[in-house]
Structures are given as structure tokens and as C-alpha cells.
């Protein structure tokens, strides 16, 4: 037994390999820290605060670990391996654990800082223990120099690997589990490296195998966990994140400005949202006989309203968006309000936080223009908003010479879905005019104009547009062969063919 008080026996320890161990565990240690920091800012928003508190608590916990190391007196090597295995497990499950606890309930912050504390303290134990194991093997000045060098090199490796390779390629859940596995492997490996110092290496190996097995199982289930956590889509810094009863709202800021995500789906990117919103709003406005009363369904970000307000003659805009959290953000969050030109505070605009289906079914006012800007039909609830029933209700709320426009997913990536929307609108008794525009953040995007009777362009576009002019406007309805019309079934409440088609088509791209 490696009793510290006893004179150290000459052991055939492979020092270089032990230093390599230092490198690996240092990398792992920093990776866990980065994972928690990223995850906290990802889930809670406000990355500066999240990162500094997580790093602070983590470093402090390492200090706690270092201090605790003095209480380990006997069986240093054995403890070291055990600590390795514990770090492997605790670090490995951090990301899955945090995602799951975020979705599960109100104790997220407790779990968050709890895991920072545990992982930090365990990592803090590693180096002091190792130093003490090696102190009789290596001259002190070499020992300190080597261990700390490898420690810092490991940190550098982690800080480079993490943003460049790990997060983009693996995502947080897999990274976390993978580094747990590596850490566990180091633990297992050290049972051979430190064999002469270990009283019962066999038992330790069994424990190590257990930890590795658990983490492997986690890795096998990573897809499911990742789906559940919807992680991995934010390349940029998260500046706002909140969860309303309806959705998760995340605002990120990067080189190209703001992006808004709802439940992880990109709603707009500030660089090119003008393309999307000009193409959404103006073709319908140019065709409608009047613009006095406009209805917007969805579109709580206020960007479509900004475009509407460019038109003379708009007397009222009614924006119906289910989620008060979204419209509040668009009204009060300064950067976002600046982007939408403070449109939601305009006196002509009335914001109604209501269910769009119910709003259509239960009211009777008619509108000159209706902008339908819902998320894509990727589930049965949203699918209802793309049915003949919905369009029938829409029609009952439109002026006879009015025009509606419907965002209709990508005619390139989801061609069948796009034409299904068009066919459904037509089946509801509308005259339709499908068109599309290129929005780089989204790709080729599709819209369908719907009117109770055929409508020509009767108004000139308002000044100040960046994407549309008269010529571009007329070119939008040309569909190249790879997006050309496909015969399609009609989407009804009782078949929901669109949701299934949409799922299939987008699966090919993801």
C-alpha cells in the first residue's frame, strides 16, 4: 500500500505516460466547464452573466477540491483512480442531466450549480493527488514544471477544440458523454500505470468498466436526449432566452446581427429578414383594392407590421399572436424594437394575444389584407392552420376584393409541401398566385397569394424597399423546373397530409 509516511519504494512508473494523463484530464476538466457555461447561456440567455458565474463557481470548486485533497492520507493512487472515475461519470452526464432537468422542472439552477460544484471539486482533487503520487518519483522542480505545463496545454487544447470541432460536430450532449468516456478510459488506464501502488487493481477495473458502460449507453441514447433537448443550433451568442407557456424564445447576436429562434427554429436573421418580409407583405398589398384594415396572424416579431406601415392608407393593423411573451419582447426589447421600427407601438397597430383559429372562428370583422405568417407545419397542431377549414374561415373574414398571403415553406426543400399548401388554399375556393423569393438564411422561400377573386397588381410599391421593385415583383412567380408545380392532395383536418409530407421532405435536408 502506498502509504505516504513510509519511504517511497522505487517504482517502475512510466512518467511520460503519467504526464500524458495530465494533459488528457486537464482537457476534460476544461471541456466540462465550457459545456456548463455554454449550456447555461444557451438555456438561460445572457451569456456574459452565465459564463462568468459558471467559471467563477467552477474555479472556486476546484479550490475546494484542492483543499479537500489534504484529507486524503492513505491509498493515494487508489483515490486518484476513483476520483478519475467519479469525474468521468459526473462530467460525462453533465450536459444530458442539465438538458433534462431544464425541461423537467423548476430546479434547473440548483442542478446547474450543483453539478458545477461537484465536477469542479473532483477536478480540483486530481492534480494535487497526482502531484503527491509523483513527488517521490520526480524532482520537485521538474514535477511542478511538467504537470503544470501539461495542465495548461490541455486547457489550450480544450479551448480550441470546443468551439471549433466539438460543439459544431458533436453538440453538447455528445461532447459531454465523449469526454466522460475519455476521462473514464484514463481512469482505467491509470490502473495499469499505477498498478504497483494499487492494492486491488482488479476491483478498480471493474468499477471503471461500469462507468464506461454507463457512459456508452448514454452515448447510444444521445440522439434521443439531443432531440429532447433540441440542442445544438445556436452558433452565435445567446442574448435573450425565455420560455413562455407556448414556446421557447431565443435571440442570438453574431457577426451578421440578430437572429430569432422559436423552439429552436430560425424565425429571422437580421441580415436578410428584409427580403423575407418585403416578399411576404408587398405583393399582397400591391394587389389589394384597399389597405384600410389589415390582419396579421402570427408574426409577433413585428417585422411584417413594419413593412405594412410603409403603405399609405393603412388605418388599422390587427396583429394576432398567441404568445404575449413574444409580442412583449418585440415591443420592449430595444434592439428588436429598433429592427421592427417600433411598429408594435404604432397607434394604428393593435396587438391581440389570442389563438388565431379561435380569432377567425369567433369574430366577424372583415379585412382588406391578411398576412398569414405561421411557423411551418411541423406538427399536428400547426398543421391545423394549413387546412381547408382554416382557409375557409380566413375567407369568411376577408373583404371580397381583399388579398391574403400565406407563408408556405420552401418550394425547393419541401416542394410537395409547398404545392400542397397551394392546392389546399385553392380547394378552399380561393384564386391563388404562388411565388417565391430567395432568403439566404432560409433558402428559397415560398408564399401563396389568396383572394376571393383574381387580383392584378394595382398599386405601385412604396419607396424605401431594399429587395423588391416592380420588375423583381413580376419575376417572383416564375418557378424553375426544380420547384415547379406538383399535383397534390388537399390538406384537411381529418387527413393532415401536409404534416406527414413536410416531415418527410425536411428529413432529407437535416
Amino acid at each position, binding site marked *: 500500500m502506498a502509504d505516504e509516511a513510509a519511504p517511497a519504494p522505487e517504482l517502475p512508473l512510466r512518467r511520460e505516460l503519467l504526464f500524458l494523463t495530465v494533459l488528457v484530464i486537464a482537457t476534460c476538466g476544461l471541456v466540462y466547464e465550457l459545456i456548463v457555461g455554454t449550456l447555461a447561456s444557451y438555456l438561460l440567455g445572457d451569456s456574459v452573466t452565465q459564463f462568468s458565474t459558471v467559471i467563477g463557481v467552477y474555479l472556486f470548486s476546484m479550490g475546494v477540491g484542492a483543499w479537500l485533497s489534504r484529507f486524503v492520507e492513505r491509498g493515494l493512487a487508489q483515490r486518484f483512480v476513483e476520483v478519475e472515475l467519479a469525474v468521468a461519470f459526473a462530467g460525462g452526464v453533465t450536459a444530458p442531466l442539465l438538458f433534462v432537468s431544464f425541461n423537467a422542472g423548476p430546479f434547473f439552477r440548483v442542478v446547474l450549480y450543483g453539478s458545477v460544484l461537484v465536477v469542479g471539486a473532483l477536478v480540483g482533487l486530481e492534480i494535487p493527488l497526482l502531484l503527491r503520487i509523483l513527488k517521490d518519483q520526480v524532482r520537485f522542480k521538474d514535477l511542478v514544471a511538467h504537470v503544470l505545463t501539461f495542465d495548461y496545454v490541455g486547457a489550450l487544447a480544450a479551448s480550441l477544440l470546443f468551439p471549433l470541432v466539438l460543439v459544431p460536430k458533436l453538440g453538447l450532449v455528445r461532447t459531454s458523454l465523449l469526454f466522460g468516456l475519455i476521462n473514464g478510459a484514463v481512469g482505467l488506464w491509470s490502473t495499469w500505470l499505477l498498478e504497483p501502488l494499487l492494492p486491488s487493481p482488479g476491483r478498480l477495473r471493474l468499477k471503471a468498466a461500469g462507468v464506461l458502460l454507463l457512459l456508452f449507453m448514454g452515448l447510444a441514447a444521445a440522439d434521443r436526449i439531443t432531440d429532447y433537448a433540441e440542442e445544438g443550433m445556436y452558433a452565435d451568442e445567446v442574448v435573450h432566452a425565455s420560455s413562455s407557456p407556448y414556446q421557447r424564445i431565443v435571440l442570438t447576436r453574431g457577426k451578421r446581427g440578430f437572429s430569432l429562434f422559436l423552439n429552436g427554429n430560425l424565425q429571422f436573421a437580421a441580415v436578410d429578414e428584409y427580403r423575407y418580409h418585403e416578399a411576404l407583405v408587398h405583393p399582397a398589398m400591391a394587389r389589394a383594392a384597399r389597405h384600410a384594415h389589415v390582419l396579421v396572424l402570427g408574426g409577433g416579431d413585428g417585422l411584417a407590421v413594419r413593412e405594412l406601415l410603409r403603405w399609405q392608407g393603412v388605418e388599422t393593423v390587427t396583429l394576432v399572436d398567441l404568445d404575449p411573451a413574444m409580442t412583449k419582447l418585440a415591443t420592449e426589447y430595444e434592439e428588436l424594437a429598433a429592427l421592427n421600427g417600433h411598429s408594435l407601438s404604432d397607434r394604428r397597430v393593435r396587438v391581440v394575444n389570442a389563438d388565431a*383559429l379561435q380569432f377567425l372562428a369567433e369574430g366577424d370583422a372583415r379585412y382588406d389584407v391578411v398576412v398569414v405568417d405561421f411557423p411551418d407545419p411541423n406538427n*399536428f397542431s400547426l398543421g391545423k392552420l394549413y387546412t381547408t377549414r382554416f382557409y375557409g374561415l380566413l375567407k369568411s373574414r376577408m373583404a371580397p376584393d381583399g388579398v391574403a398571403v400565406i407563408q408556405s415553406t420552401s418550394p425547393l426543400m419541401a416542394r410537395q409541401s409547398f404545392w400542397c399548401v397551394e392546392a389546399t388554399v385553392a380547394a378552399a375556393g380561393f384564386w391563388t398566385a404562388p411565388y417565391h423569393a430567395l432568403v439566404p438564411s432560409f433558402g428559397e422561400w415560398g408564399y401563396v397569394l389568396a383572394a376571393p377573386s383574381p387580383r392584378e397588381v394595382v398599386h405601385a410599391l412604396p419607396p424605401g424597399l431594399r429587395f423588391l421593385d416592380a420588375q423583381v415583383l413580376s419575376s417572383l412567380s416564375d418557378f424553375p423546373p426544380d420547384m415547379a408545380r406538383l399535383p397534390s392532395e388537399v390538406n384537411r383536418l381529418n387527413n393532415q397530409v401536409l404534416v406527414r409530407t413536410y416531415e418527410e421532405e425536411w428529413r432529407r435536408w437535416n
Partner: protein
Amino acid sequence: MAALELMRRRELIHAFLGAAAWSACQKGGGAERPQVPGALVDRAFEWGHALRGAAPLPRAQALEPVDVVVVGAGAAGLSAAWRLAGAGVRSLRVLEVDEGPGGTARSGRNAVSAFPWGAHYLPAPTREGGPVMRLLSGMGLVTGVDDAGRPRFAEQALVREPDERLFYRGTWYDGLYLRAGASGEDLRQLQRFEQAMDALSKARDGQGRKAFDVPLERGSDDAEWTALDRLSMEEWLHQEGYTSPRLRWLVDYACRDDFGADAAAVSAYAGIWYFAARHGEGTGSDGYLTWPEGNGRLVAELQRALGPGQLATRALVHAVEPVDGGVAVHAVEAGTERPAGYLARRVVLAVPRFVAARVYVPWRQAPPAFLPAFQYTPWAVANLTVSEHPGGRGVPLAWDNVLYESKSMGYVVATHQRERMVDGGPTVLTWYYPLSAPDVKAERERLLSSGYADWEALVMADLSAAHRDIGRTAERLEVMRWGHAMVRPRPGFLFGPERRAAAVPAGAVHFAHSDLGGLALFEEACHHGVRAAEEVLAGLGGRPQETWL
């Protein structure tokens, strides 16, 4: 919970639901959770008791003269009244013992939603014509006719997708046939079965009648098909070499769904009829019509035909007796026993046979020979109000949610058809349980000997197998025990002599009820209600009417 009580509970859950439910219930700590507040809401047993009581019920001295009295405001009685009102009969009374109309198609309502107490859907008709189509057209639900001549219905009344899902070992699957893990042989048998049903749904006899049609009356009575009525569905499956457990499950489910009886207790004709006449895809049906209150919506529509004061509820009819100048109908107010009497020119007795045999006075001494042939399945229906939509792994919450390993029928979601963009929040789950074994008497015993605590335990055990935390969201549970819920199409019944004999009028007394159709379904109730009403119209004289049948 005391050990003895726990043992009893275990036995109960085992007996009613099967082993899977008990183990799920234990895992979820089901035995220790607090009881969900609620009550039994059935009253029929009290009325039955009053009818069978030794002391005769009071009779009114003066009888109010009316042209027609309809006894029973179930789907059949209301269909009769609807037909009579359509022919301009004004002097009309409908007497119903319950607090409201509907019978087994009754519905309830609470702060969260309306919900059914029994019948909850109607397969969309596949052909024009007939009283059901007339009713649906009147409701504005028929939007047109397709190229093949099939009517099309307003989509908001058709069950919205996802319509059905099936729970098996932790996951919900699409549809009612358990495809997950099915072997090649299973799928081959399924395909063979589907093809057979498709062919049968298209089969017609020499006179051009469909082999299997809705209502039964309209279909063929050729021996080629009616021979199927002599064996049980189970025997037929065996004879045709259908051995796949999954397929047998599906067929058994179908029999229990429409008839409340196991495949062994249902005639093969009826079992096939389910697939070939009413539900089959081959018939090109638009799907099911349903509403939050289930067929309560149809009841409300029928009821609209009645003028003010024509429907009397809480009126227990205890004697219907031919007298000079017509038929005397004696009723007492349920609860107070205050009598009321009518002298009717014609009467429609729209109640099940066992009630008719008790209230039609000449039958009290000499029970009609057909009586024993009519047997009825008991059912339990529970409405559970929950604060949150239940979820689950796999296919999202559907309208009809069925548990493969349970003997219950699963549950339907009252708010499924609600026109909202977001699904979620509080809802009402209607849970169904047929007491489907062959011996209906024993089954009725079983139903009546179980109280609220038992049914609470059963419902919660059953649901928590699929939804662990249902106990946390459960707010209130109400349970209806239907002693005589559905007539049973046992082998030999549909084409035996009794069913026809029972529909023959006794003088000025006419009979209606779904049991005369042999199948407890809205279409049968409506058909027989209208049929009886048209007999009455002929009997009253007056202008000859065009039939609605």
C-alpha cells in the same frame, strides 16, 4: 392501505383490466395515491327498482288527450318525434325518465368541456338518402357529393388527425393495429383480412342490395350472408385460418367497441358487418363524425324539432295500456312520484325490450316470447377531468387512445375537435369499459357490485399504465354504470325470428329502439324511430307521407 384492502384491489384490477395494469399501477405507486374526488352518477337502477316494485305506482285520475306519446327520449324516441314533427304532428309528448334527453347518447358538460356519457361518434355515411343523411344535411354538415356519388362532410365535424393511437410497452403507435413488432405472417394475415373485408364491403346480392349495409334492414337477407349469423366471430376467424394474435386483438377490439362483447360472444355476421358496412375503408367513408359531447350533438339537433313543452323529463312511464278511445300512458315524476297520465291515439315505445315488457300492461301477465332473445351488455363510462393534456412517447395525443394490453377500450379526448391552434391545457377524458364476457347476467352483477372507489381504482390504474403522472393532473372523476347499455348481436340473433317479431306493433302501440335493429348504433336507433313514426302517421290517417327511410 391495509393488506386486505390491497389484496382486494389487486384482485379487482386483475379481473377487470389484466395483469399489465396491476403491475403498472404498483410501479406508479398507484396504491398509495390519494383518491380522485368524484362520484357514481347513474340513476337507472333506482328507476328500474321503482318499475319492478311490489306496490303499484300512483296513476293520475284525468288523462290528457294527445295524438301521440313517445316514451323514451333516446336517439330512437327523438328520431320518432323528429319525424312526427316533420309531418306536422303538433299534439305530441315525449316522456323521458332522465333529467335530460339522450339516453345512451347523453352528454354532460363542466367548466372544461362538454363530454359524452355514451355514444360518441357516427361513421360518416357513404351514401345519400336515409334519415341520418337528412339529419346531417339539416345540420349543415354535408358539403357536397364527390365524383363517386359519396357525400362529403364539413371537416370540422370529422375526427381530426391524429385520430387513433395504440399504447404498447411504453410507446404510442399510429392506428389500432399493432404494427410494431408484427411478424411477416401477422402482416400477411392482416392483408388477407383487409382484402376479404374490402371484398365483402363491395359484395351485393341478386337484387343489388349490399351484403352488409347500414342500417341492417337495408342490407341483403340472402342465406349466403345470413348463414354467417349462426356462428360466432371467433369461430369464423378460426375457420378462415386467422391465427395472428394481433389480428384477433383488432377484431376483438372491434366487437367490443361496437357491440360491447368479445368476438366469442358476437355473431360473425355482426363482426364482419363492423368492418364491411360501417368502418371499412373500402366503403370510402370520410371518417367519423364527432363532437366534444359525442352523439349528444345529434340528440340536440333531433330535439330542436320539438316545440316548447313537448318534452317532459323526469317522467317515469310505468304503464301503457290499451283502453277505450286509445292508449293510456301513466307516468310518475321521478323522485316525487307525482302522477301524470295521457290518453294517446298512438304510442311509440322507444325503450328497450325489457322495459317495454314491463310497462306494456298486457305483457306483464304474458311476457312476449321474444323477450329472452334480447340480451344487453353492461358498460361503465368514466369522465375524468384533467388539468393538462396527457402526452406519452411516440404518436401524440389522438382522439381515440387505446391500450393494447388492457381490457378497457381506452379513452377519447373531449377537446380533440376544439378549434384551437394550440393543443394543451385542461381536458376531459372519456374512458370506456364494456363488460364483454358471454354471460351478461354475471357481468351485470360484476358492474353493480362495484362502487365509486372500485371504479376510481380501475380508471386510474388503467390510465397510469400509459400516463404515470395522471394522478397529479386528475381533478374529478364521474362514473356512469350502464346496466343495459347495448343489445348484443349474439350468434343467431340478428336473423332469428325474435327480432322481427318484437318490431310488430301491438294495436296502437308501436316500437322503436336500437335493440330492434340488433346493433346498438345511432343509425339503427334513428331508422327504427323513423320507421315507428311512419307507422304512426299511417295509423293516424291524414295525407300520405313520403318516407324518410
